[in-house]
């Protein structure tokens, strides 16, 4: 009613909520998506190579290739899910739609563990690389202390709301790719030795079947940051084209570089039997926390200082950026879980002053800091593998379930290679990827003792919080749901 007309008794003024005004500005194209995704995934090689080589030994290159295939299948699953349900929750959001809040909670909570571990492992490794120039930072407890300082610094930045530059991010990723490609090319030209790589493999002995299984499961840590694809789904321009292209691009760059770098590393540091009779490589004996510096260490003397500088500079910046990405991921996921009544408001609420979920950032950063204090990169990798494969399995299962339950749901990007079962199109890559990640999770539980104990403790803690929170609410939202159907 116009304000100029006088109100009469009984008149009421109704101003409808102008929902139509609310628009989202999607600006990320293929370069933006690639750089953000590669910024996360590409950072993992700085720590994953040592952790994987420790157990997979001479089979590290094929192990990284196998997990690369799993990564591709999982990335395709995330691409379909992210374009279909462009929400921040990733596998938790897919499971919420496909199954129920409980499955969604487990997937989200597992993913939260991944984000926390990403923060810990990236901050810890960044400081280990810095140790090349500041040797005191190479050893525990100073490397842990340095890692905690990085996390605290990022908490401050994210709560104070300092803007991060996307252009700087693209530039850093560009230099990172160039440096990694240069090392790989130098490796192919000067170091890779195929007979040596074959000699490194001692079937059934080094690695033993158990070590090989352990290596495959822990190699998931080489692909940290795959969830980024899901997070970016809602920010991509023309997601139906840009997301699959970005995913394929990241896959080809990553798998090529990882394979070449691991071949270079194991040509330079052959597998041998030490005095205790154990099969080891000097890559993990001397460079477990900074394996790329190990590769640089065997490069010709005249280019070594330049390469070392680039590797240290890029590793530190990219890993700090990855720590930040983990923090932002945890924050967004906390918001998602809060919106779906899966996390108490005291953690997930948006701070009025900072306009971000400040409590969530602080709470999960404290846990990340606590993990850093252990100074054990293998423990962190164990935990990552535990959470990651659980979240990936949930994502694959959800995408398959949604193909069955809601086949008509608009899918801007639909995974190719489908088989038809009872009229429903089932994506083959999701079935294989789901089985692979599920089996990998069993391997993690079976072979990683610390991962098993801490991982299950994390799940139990989360479920306790969830149950307590649900029960403390007088009328949970789902109790209000009106069930329609025959009596």
């Amino acid at each position, binding site marked *: 009613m116009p304000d100029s007309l006088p109100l009469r008794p009984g008149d009421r003024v109704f101003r409808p909520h102008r929902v139509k005004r*609310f628009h989202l*500005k999607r*600006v990320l194209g293929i370069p933006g998506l690639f750089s953000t995704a590669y910024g996360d995934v590409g950072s993992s090689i700085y720590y994953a190579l040592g952790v994987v080589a420790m157990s997979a030994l001479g089979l590290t290159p094929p192990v990284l290739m196998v997990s690369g295939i799993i990564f591709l299948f999982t990335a395709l699953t995330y691409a379909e899910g992210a374009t279909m349900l462009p929400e921040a929750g990733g596998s938790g959001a897919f499971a919420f739609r496909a199954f129920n809040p409980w499955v969604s909670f487990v997937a989200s909570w597992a993913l939260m563990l991944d984000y926390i571990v990403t923060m810990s492992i990236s901050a810890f490794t960044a400081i280990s690389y810095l140790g090349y120039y500041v040797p005191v930072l190479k050893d525990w407890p100073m490397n842990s202390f340095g890692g905690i300082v990085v996390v605290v610094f990022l908490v401050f930045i994210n709560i104070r709301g300092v803007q991060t530059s*996307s252009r700087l991010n693209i530039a850093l990723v560009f230099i990172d790719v160039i440096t990694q490609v240069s090392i790989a090319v130098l490796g192919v030209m000067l170091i890779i030795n195929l007979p040596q790589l074959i000699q490194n493999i001692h079937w059934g002995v080094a690695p033993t079947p158990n070590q090989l299984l352990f290596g495959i499961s822990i190699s998931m840590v080489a692909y940290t940051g795959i969830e980024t694809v899901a997070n970016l789904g809602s*920010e991509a321009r023309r997601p139906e084209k840009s997301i699959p292209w970005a995913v394929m691009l990241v896959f080809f760059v990553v798998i090529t570089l990882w394979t070449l770098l691991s071949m270079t590393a194991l040509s330079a540091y052959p597998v041998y039997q030490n005095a205790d009779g154990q099969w080891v490589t000097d890559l993990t004996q001397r460079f477990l926390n900074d394996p790329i510096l190990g590769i640089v260490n065997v490069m010709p003397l005249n280019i070594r200082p330049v390469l070392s500088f680039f590797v240290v500079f890029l590793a530190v910046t990219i890993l700090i950026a990855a720590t930040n990405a983990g*923090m932002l991921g945890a924050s967004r996921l906390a*918001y998602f879980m809060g919106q779906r009544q899966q996390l108490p408001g005291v953690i997930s609420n948006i701070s009025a002053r900072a*306009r971000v979920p400040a409590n969530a950032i602080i709470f999960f950063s404290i846990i990340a800091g606590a993990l850093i204090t252990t100074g054990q990169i293998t423990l962190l990798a164990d935990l990552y593998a535990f959470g990651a494969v659980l979240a990936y399995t949930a994502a694959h299962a959800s995408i398959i379930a949604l193909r069955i339950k809601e086949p008509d749901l608009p899918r801007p990007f639909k995974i190719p290679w489908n088989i038809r079962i009872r009229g429903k199109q089932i994506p083959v890559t999701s079935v294989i990827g789901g089985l692979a990640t599920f089996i990998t999770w069993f391997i993690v539980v079976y072979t990683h003792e610390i991962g098993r104990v801490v991982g299950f403790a994390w799940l139990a803690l989360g479920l306790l919080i969830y149950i307590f929170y649900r029960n403390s609410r007088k009328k949970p939202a789902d109790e209000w749901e009106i069930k329609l159907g025959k009596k």
Partner: protein
Amino acid sequence: MPVAGTHADEETIRLACRLAKRDKGKVWAVSVVAIKRALPLDAEIQSEIKKAEEILDKVEAIAEEEDSEVETDVLQAREVGPAIVDEAVERGVGLILMGISYKQRFGQFSLGNVVPYVLKNSPCPVILYQQSSVGK
């Protein structure tokens, strides 16, 4: 025209309405809510949306006084400058009119981040309007 709820908005809106009336054009006012990367882009920060709605309510009221019609919109974006430029390109606008208030940074007059970005990247002419009485 992008509006941010500053003192300069009122005069800028009146100017936009008069220019549009003379050239039989259309005024489109947008308030951009910047969402930090710690939240998903579709996060609904009620306080910010309410603020944006209030700004646009005021815009509509001023346009009504000028006997003009104005189309209003709330945008959520990561950064304000690129959102304005991108939207201007998509809508094919003929002119961007921005009201600015006098601001100082480190003791020097500053245009902030948004205005220079729009000036540098705008696909169309840009008019900056600064109220003479503000900040002096």
